[in-house]
């Protein structure tokens, strides 16, 4: 199916159109971040400015559209620049881990035998270390910082894709057109790229769409454990972690600090929802039975 047609159909479907619009909105926010929330100095633009030194969150007021979070971090600024972080984490982590997964899954299923055994046991080894333990040890080794968090997420995040890809390739490997190509003496690279990857990529792509949205949540879980982005770095996951001790409100009102959780929560939800909607629509489009 042509990409153009996929796009047209994505736009025609109300839900995925909604998703696309939201993503577009976030893209615009990310692109125009320097205008929406001008940084103090360009080199530490991702450093959320502090309105003061107060620990307690303060409600929205002039100059601080969304209020300030724990530690007087400007929520608006954090949200705007955090959009860039969300895309960066999503694209880089999902992209790289999917790439590794595809390579390992394909090689393993295509060649089978000892290679398959080798790769799958390596996958088992990586799966055996609980993700958060691995991420914590790795960020301790590499040092704090978003790049290192991404390295950890990629290093311990490719196994799912590898397994999915492997099962897909195993299925398609025995299809007649592949067997025919093998019989015709086509080179392995040609078969892998022309027939196998082209035919197996869509489930992986759909999975990747779904993962795009959830990466922000994973990042917030890491922030919760103290191994996420550095304190004060514009990152949605951290923004919502700032709300941790304030969610239940203060005396008299459970909603006293609503803005600390509602604002980042809504952004994360919309982001994740959009990717999911697009992913769902994508699957419907690519599902041959629906056509």
């Amino acid at each position: 199916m042509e990409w153009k047609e996929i796009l047209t159909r994505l736009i025609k479907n109300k839900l995925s159109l909604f998703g696309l619009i939201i993503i577009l909105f976030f893209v615009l926010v990310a692109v125009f971040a320097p205008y929406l929330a001008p940084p103090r100095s360009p080199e530490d633009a991702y450093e959320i400015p502090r309105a003061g030194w107060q620990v307690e969150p303060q409600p929205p007021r002039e100059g601080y559209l969304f209020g300030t979070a724990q530690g007087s971090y400007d929520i608006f600024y954090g949200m705007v620049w955090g959009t860039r972080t969300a895309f960066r984490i999503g694209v880089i982590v999902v992209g790289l881990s999917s790439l590794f997964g595809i390579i390992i899954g394909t090689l393993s299923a295509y060649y089978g035998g000892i290679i398959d055994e080798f790769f799958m046991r390596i996958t088992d080894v990586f799966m055996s270390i609980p993700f958060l333990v691995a991420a914590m040890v790795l960020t301790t080794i590499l040092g704090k910082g978003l790049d290192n968090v991404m390295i950890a997420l990629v290093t311990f995040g490719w196994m799912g894709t590898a397994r999915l890809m492997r099962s897909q390739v195993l299925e398609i490997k025995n299809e007649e057109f592949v067997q025919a190509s093998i019989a015709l003496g086509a080179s392995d690279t040609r078969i892998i790229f022309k027939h196998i990857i082209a035919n197996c990529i869509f489930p992986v792509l759909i999975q990747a769409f779904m993962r795009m949205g959830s990466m922000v949540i994973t990042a917030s879980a890491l922030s919760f454990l103290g191994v996420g982005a550095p304190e004060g770095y514009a990152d949605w996951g951290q923004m919502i972690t700032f709300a941790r001790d304030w969610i239940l409100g203060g005396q008299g009102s459970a909603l006293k600090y609503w803005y600390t959780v509602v604002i980042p929560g809504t952004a994360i939800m919309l982001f994740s929802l959009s990717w999911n909607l697009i992913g769902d629509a994508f699957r419907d489009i690519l599902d041959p039975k629906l056509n």
Partner: protein
Amino acid sequence: MINYIIRRFLILPFILFGVTILVFSMIMMLGPYQRLSTYINDPAQLKGQDMDKLISKYGLDDPWYEQYSRWIGGVVHGDFGWSESAGQPVTEAIFSRFPATLELALFAVIPVVMGGIWLGVLSAVHHNQKFDHIIRIISTIGWSFPTFVFGLLVLMIFYGVLGWFPPGRLSADAAAIIRSAEFVRYTGLNVLDGILNLEINVVFDAFRHLIGPIVTLAIVWWSYILRITRSSMLETLRKDYIRTARAKGVAEKFVINKHARRNALIPVVTVAGPMVLGLLGGVVIVESVFGYRGIGQYAAQAAQQLDYSGILGVAMYFSFLLILINLIVDVSYAVIDPRIRLE
């Protein structure tokens, strides 16, 4: 099948070896002073410490292979070492926390899987109708908010306001019963032990403490199972044999529950394995919110403190679980799908 199971277990040592090498080499990339953080885990403890003395006491500056062989030598003799972060031997640390997490995971899996499948099926049956949209949006919300947000809200509603489900694992009275000499700890699972000891109060109390974490886990993981069930169910509902069943005059209820669901469950089983593993390893946030001492918290603490015997212990235990869960998944595959069973 038996061959297959044996083969799986024969692989286990290799995986365990790989895991230990991977973890060990990661930790050994750090210098001895960094690894001192295993023994000094708080700035307040820095005072009066003679760092170099500590380093030689724990052999932190020995070459990595010496440290590794020291550790593996112990393992061969059944000694998994001392976990500094837990203040217990590793085996004890794991076995004193594992039942708690297992109990949580077991009880959580039931509503998560049942509820998730039920909602996923409903959502697929009402594909693209209002119900489907609402369920999908709710599930995205469930998947999009960090666990601690739900955990704290659940705690506030069911404990803070209603007072039904307190945090922790047991209340003081029930804990006192469990400590008493007459109470035999058969399994370490409070509910089960309560039943076996015929202590209804313990059962009730333990169960009461489980509900909060379970509800929280359910909210988060429901959406996961739901999505998979939904898409798998959608695919199944378009299968020819569903039309066949309808053409036979089978009522829609049975078409869905008998003919479609069982087929739709096949991919769900595939993800249920990793999900259970995730539940067992990733419950740290829920454990933290509900003051529930389990393996997740331990894993996090060991990692934070670079307590390598602790990390290795947890990792080895997870490899074992992975193999076990994969086995269970494969067996359930066979139960559900005759095509696999008979091969």
